[in-house]
């Protein structure tokens, strides 16, 4: 997510320490949308992501490493976990986006084919799929454009149901916040 927001890439281990959530403004159909992108902050390492992390998410971004088959195979349980914990109103149509990352590495290292990934995405209700390189900034912009668009569509639907005044937020007042979840 650092690449996307700050146009820089860090390949240090624990690169996300101190990076809380990042915000990014994007234009979607002439509307300015402020996205909040949250990552798991390492709390998933020992299955300790609390339910509060999932609250109010408008989109869930699942990221795997195309050079690591296991990271792809766990997508299924991450998707289930998200749906259980976040309990969205309409789980069938909740927006997910899958990113196959690290495509900049040499082809011989690749363990998950594009076809295999796309088949899985199709079987889960046509989840949009992007192959990205955070390092080379390949496809990152396009992926987040889709994330923003789908999250916003979800938000609009939710607003129809919601007849309560907006909750009170402490701290910086964002007029529009969407947030996703990077399981990377």
């Amino acid at each position: 997510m650092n690449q996307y927001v700050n146009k820089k890439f860090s390949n240090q281990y624990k690169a996300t320490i101190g990076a809380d959530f990042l915000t990014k403004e994007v234009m979607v159909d002439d509307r300015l949308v402020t996205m909040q992108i949250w990552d798991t902050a390492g709390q998933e390492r020992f299955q300790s992501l609390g339910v509060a992390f999932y609250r109010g998410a408008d989109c869930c971004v699942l990221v795997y490493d195309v050079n690591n088959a296991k990271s792809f195979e766990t997508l299924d349980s991450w998707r289930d976990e998200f749906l259980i914990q976040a309990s969205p109103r309409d789980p069938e149509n909740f927006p997910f986006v899958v990113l196959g990352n690290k495509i900049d590495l040499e082809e011989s290292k690749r363990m998950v084919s594009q076809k295999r990934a796309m088949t899985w995405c199709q079987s889960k209700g046509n989840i949009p799929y992007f192959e990205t390189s955070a390092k080379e900034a390949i496809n990152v912009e396009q992926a987040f454009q889709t994330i923003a668009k789908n999250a916003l569509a979800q938000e609009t639907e939710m607003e129809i149901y919601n007849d309560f005044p907006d909750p009170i937020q402490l701290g910086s007042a964002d007029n529009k916040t969407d947030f996703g979840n990077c399981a990377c």
Partner: protein
Amino acid sequence: MEDNFHTIVLGTGLVESIIAGALARSGKSVLHLDQQDRYGGSWPTLNIRQLLDWVDEHGSGMGKEVDNHVKTIVENGSAHVGSSIPIYFTDNESQGYKHVELRIYGSSIPERDHKEVDVDTTISIDVASIPLTDGTSTRQSVIRETVQNKLDNTLKHYAIGGLTSDILNRTIDRIIHSLPPTSTVTIDILPHVQQLATYANLLSKSRQFNIDLAPKLVSCTGSMVDNLMDSGIGRYLEFKGVERTYMYTQAGEQGPHFDRVPVSKEDVFQDKELRYVDKRRLMKFLTFAMEHEEQLDVLDGYQDKPYRELIEEKFSISTRLADAIVFALAATNGDAHNVTAMEGLSRTKRFMTSIGKFGPFAYLVPLYGGGSEIAQAYCRVCAVYGGIYMLDHPVSQLCMDENKEKVTGVIGRDGVEYKCEWLVAGTDYLPSSFLDGSDQGAWQWVNMAVAITSAPFHNEVNEVNLTVFPPQSHPYGSYILTVGHGTQVCPEGYYIVFYSTLCGDDEAKSDDALQSALSATLNVDEDPISSQPKPLLLLKYKRRIRQIPPSSLPFNLISCRGPDDTLDYDGALKEAKDAFDIILANEPDRLFLPRPEEMDEE
């Protein structure tokens, strides 16, 4: 993974979590463990399924689960060279509660479209005709089977499903238990089916409920709000304002009723119930309270007298309004009844100043639950700054140095010893030798109840309100917090009502006070002529407030209290800040949860 940390924190209660967040934020390495598989420690927020499990674990009559894993590890010995002391978390945790009682009320069963005739819910058994034993079956088992078949068919007929075998078996037990000892018995199982309908309904919405077992309010001008805003942690949370405050009045021409408490000068003006003379006196008093520091001469000997005396004698305010000021406008603690005039005035001023900071209210409630939700926000900060999280990770032993003066670490479920310079622990994680050292008599209890209803008990519908029961038979009175779907703690059309009253020295009177608050608000006794809403679920319990004197602990072990008896979270924050100051006493330049850098860029 590394096994050496600056601080190990045991338990994810609010105080522990704030300390964990503050230390990690200051660059200290933190390992944060919790024996349970959820955040919150002794500040739990539970869904329906978790709540039913919690009742099973804490309810009276249920066998207490023994910390087997601890016993096993202790018996097998460990590699630790110093001395280690076993921790019996489950035992400690269950001692934090008593008198846990759950009652599920029957729901009317929906009519089915294709229903020809009402299904017959009565069972008739000719007990005498069943042989005592017949091959493999006994009279007992034949009766059980008859009841079970009838229940299964009835539930199927009404499409009531999703119940656990535990709930079903207990219902069958209760039905069999209620059979008269006659030779033929006839019993209508409809009330049991109606009760199961409530279970099924609540379980089907289990995850939409977030039931806080230690509910508190966030004071708009309190230190918790300031810290959430200054540290940026408030960005993880959302809140609703407490829109209305009501006060219960038993006496008067109207009979028992609720009055809306005017909480601002605008409210006083608009109040239609108040007489003109009362309005004028109240306005005069509130104006004085706001400026009392500059007009101390007005107090004229009342400073240290009870707050009520000042209000009633000096300002000639009626008893009813005085109750409102003392218990609604000056209440941050269970001690409202014996607050001095000076303290009362500063609380009232603080209350009045809070109004309007975020909206026309003095208190906020966090969405999705309370202490546990705020704790998770602080845990996230800890994780963001490198803290390591392990939930569902039992801790079996505390390791001490050879002189037993200093904690050196803990041994976890995995048998691995994690070392630390400081140990911060919720009281449930303390070895019994430390717990026994504290004065048990001084441990206080809070009398709590939580109800789920499908209708509000006040005539006005609002999402969040506070209802104050001034003391009657009991010096402490009761506070009732009602929250609706807007706070994301229950599905649409439902309300959660939280009751709390201090036990003090007289537990029986406290029980009476709680019971009268319950009876005045909900039809808890299923009185057929009552106009109050009948709850779907009512849970009563008493929660212990534990305080372990630091003198009975090793110098580098800090114990954290669970929820105290105050209305807000400021005490928890202060406790965490004090612990932070002790741990980092040698680094006085370290700031407690400073503003994150990225917020300065904004």
